[in-house]
């Protein structure tokens, strides 16, 4: 039985192809000239170049953190190319102008933009290596005043908005990788939902790393004004290379009074092979500011890929009655490592947060939940509920939980629950005795385990996440 399960889990990564598109790639290495090059390639205003250079100078004086529960060889930041864009680079007026090779890539990825976007009613922005290739549905959204475009385009067209908000939630000196991103970010998505507008469709971005030695440093900024709401989806894949690639993104969300931002991620970057060779280092800073009264920021993530996942999508609950949510499934197999969780910083009165984290470890992998709940002195009647469940498949993997709770206001209510379970031989035998084979049994158990998180995903993503998980864990029980 365990052999069958091993085979099941160990299916090859299906997004591991490379697309033959000519790239405009910057020489490897990081220095002020490279940053100036990126900035000039993107025709950026002076203030943004200054923002980048200041971030770079801070980064030079920062020390790479080592407190995380993941291990990797020291990254040589001079051996990465910080800019890679598919050629030709002329402005694309419509989807028809996109390089057909690129379109085929998206089809291989299962996202034919024309049909799928139309069918699903999803507006898709695609970031290929570092550059946003196309944003669909732009006009339709513009009719209700929504801006959804690449951040490069936003810099050109809405510089005041970018200048007002960029770096306000994750300041350039926030942490080592945020500083690096602030210095070299090349593209990403920008989304602005004006006052009172409920975004009529889910907005979606697909990220793809295609070049072997390029890093991907995207920057996403989402602003929901008073009473606005938006549901934003993010998907990620990369080809298989034997080298490790760095993905260090920054995502900032800002919700004003009564605004609601729901951010969902299905992350399936290349995880390395079964011996732990290659794969993406997914070191990301994601943070939302629930700035206004009754605002809500909700993170949902399904993390299945990457050699290392290291991220804590967080909420700063500043507005009175604001709400923060974090729903996470992190799956690791083979030699993958994950140290992920959230931070809920309660500042405003009557703020509430919910954390539901599900970690699944198989193979020789290691998965950690790390979360901070901080109730500051001004947060009267704050409430938090945290639930962290871990599931182990096999006997060589690890699951760890590091909850940090800091309460500085005695009216707070903070609850933390944790559990660890194991898919055991007896459970599988029980299924088998009812005629159900191991593959289906594992899939059913895992989906049951993750149900509370999957329920948070938009339907289409939930289906994809369910499939991805079954695929990922096929054959992993020992």
């Amino acid at each position, binding site marked *: 039985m365990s052999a069958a399960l091993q085979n099941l889990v160990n299916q090859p990564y299906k997004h591991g192809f490379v697309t033959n598109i000519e790239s405009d790639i910057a020489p490897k290495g990081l220095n002020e000239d490279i940053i100036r090059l990126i900035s000039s390639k993107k025709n950026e205003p002076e203030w943004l170049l200054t923002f980048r250079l200041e971030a770079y100078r801070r980064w030079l004086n920062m020390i790479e953190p080592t407190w995380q529960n993941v291990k990797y060889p020291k990254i040589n930041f001079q051996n990465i190319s910080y800019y890679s864009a598919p050629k030709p680079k002329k402005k694309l007026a419509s989807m028809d102008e996109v390089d057909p090779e690129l379109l085929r890539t998206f089809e291989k990825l299962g996202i034919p933009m024309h049909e799928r976007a139309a069918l699903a009613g999803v507006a898709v922005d695609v970031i290929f290596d570092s550059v946003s290739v196309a944003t669909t549905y732009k006009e339709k959204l513009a009719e209700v005043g929504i801006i959804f475009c690449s951040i490069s385009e936003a810099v050109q067209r809405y510089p005041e908005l970018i200048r007002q908000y960029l770096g306000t939630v994750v300041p350039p000196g926030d942490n080592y990788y945020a500083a690096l991103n602030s210095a070299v970010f090349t593209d990403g998505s920008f989304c602005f939902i004006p006052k009172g507008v409920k975004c009529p469709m889910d907005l979606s971005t697909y990220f793809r790393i295609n070049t072997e030695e390029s890093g991907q440093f995207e920057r996403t900024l989402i602003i929901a004004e008073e009473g606005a709401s938006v549901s934003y989806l993010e998907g990620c894949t990369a080809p298989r290379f034997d080298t490790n690639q760095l993905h260090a993104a920054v995502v900032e969300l800002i919700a004003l009074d009564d605004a609601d931002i729901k951010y969902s991620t299905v992350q399936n970057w290349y995880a390395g092979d079964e011996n732990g060779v290659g794969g993406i280092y997914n070191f990301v800073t994601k943070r939302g500011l629930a700035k206004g009264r009754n605002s809500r920021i909700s993170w949902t993530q399904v993390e299945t890929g990457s050699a290392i996942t290291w991220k804590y999508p967080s909420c700063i609950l500043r507005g009175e009655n604001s709400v923060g949510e974090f729903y996470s499934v992190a799956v690791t197999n083979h030699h993958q490592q994950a140290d992920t969780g959230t931070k809920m910083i309660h500042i405003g009165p009557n703020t509430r947060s919910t954390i539901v984290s599900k970690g699944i470890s198989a193979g020789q992998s290691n998965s950690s939940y790390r979360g901070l709940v901080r109730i500051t002195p001004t947060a009267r009647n704050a409430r938090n509920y945290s639930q962290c469940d871990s599931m182990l498949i096999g006997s060589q993997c690890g699951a760890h939980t590091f909850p940090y709770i800091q309460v500085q206001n005695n009216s707070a209510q903070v609850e933390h629950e944790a559990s660890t379970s194991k898919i055991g031989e007896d459970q599988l035998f029980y299924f088998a005795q*009812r*005629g*159900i084979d191991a593959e289906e049994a594992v899939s059913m158990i895992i989906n*049951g385990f993750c149900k509370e998180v999957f329920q948070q995903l938009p339907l289409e993503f939930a289906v994809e996440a369910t499939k991805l998980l079954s695929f990922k864990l096929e054959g992993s029980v020992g």
Partner: protein
Amino acid sequence: MINANSKILLEVHDLHATVSGAEILKGVDITVRSGEIHAIMGLNGSGKSTFAKVLAGHPSYEVTRGTLLFDGQDLSALAPEERARAGIFLAFQYPVEIPGVANNQFLRLAYNTVQGQRGEEELDPLEFDDFVREKMKLLKMNPDFLDRSVNEGFSGGEKKRNEILQMALLEPRLALLDETDSGLDIDALRIVANGVNQLSNKDNALILVTHYQRLLDYIVPDYVHVMEAGRIIRTSGKELAQALETHGYDWIHTNEQITGALP
């Protein structure tokens, strides 16, 4: 019901089996025809639960010698799920809990898997819901069982009823009931026994593994076997169970009269 002409369903000869290297079964022989009800009794550790698990194909147990034929087919070649689909059902002594998996979802998957195997129609969730609710009445089960996670937080009695519910759904040809009576109060025992009796017919067979005679007051066996140290040491009719209840298992070694009363 004994009928010498009915089909042989299970034929076990000189069965030896080990778990982690220790031999538990040391030469079990038993023949079960369709329509029959057999009880296997014995002290704890005699090997009776192991026998049930070996028949069902539990991966921790290894068959080291002997033959195991089900409907003429060599069972040792079949994976546990294939045995289940062929019609062998084990009602577990300790049913496992499966958090997060709704009972109705689990039951439907099991039902449809077996239906598919038999070339019969599978049911969609709505059809299945009607079907399973009907079966639950047989066991006087509360419909809220369907929405709870499989066995999670069930009382001992609820777990056992859930096992018999699965038996009712899957309609096995050979059902092994491993200590189904343990943990049941007298009312629950009656309900479960009544359910099992209604499922019993001339085309299927039942093996009850039990420590006590109590269950056999409600499900009357055609044969009673006594197992000791990994072998069946005595076989007789239902009166053997009564005698064991009265005199205890030691009595069997001092009383030889009953031996040989078997076909």
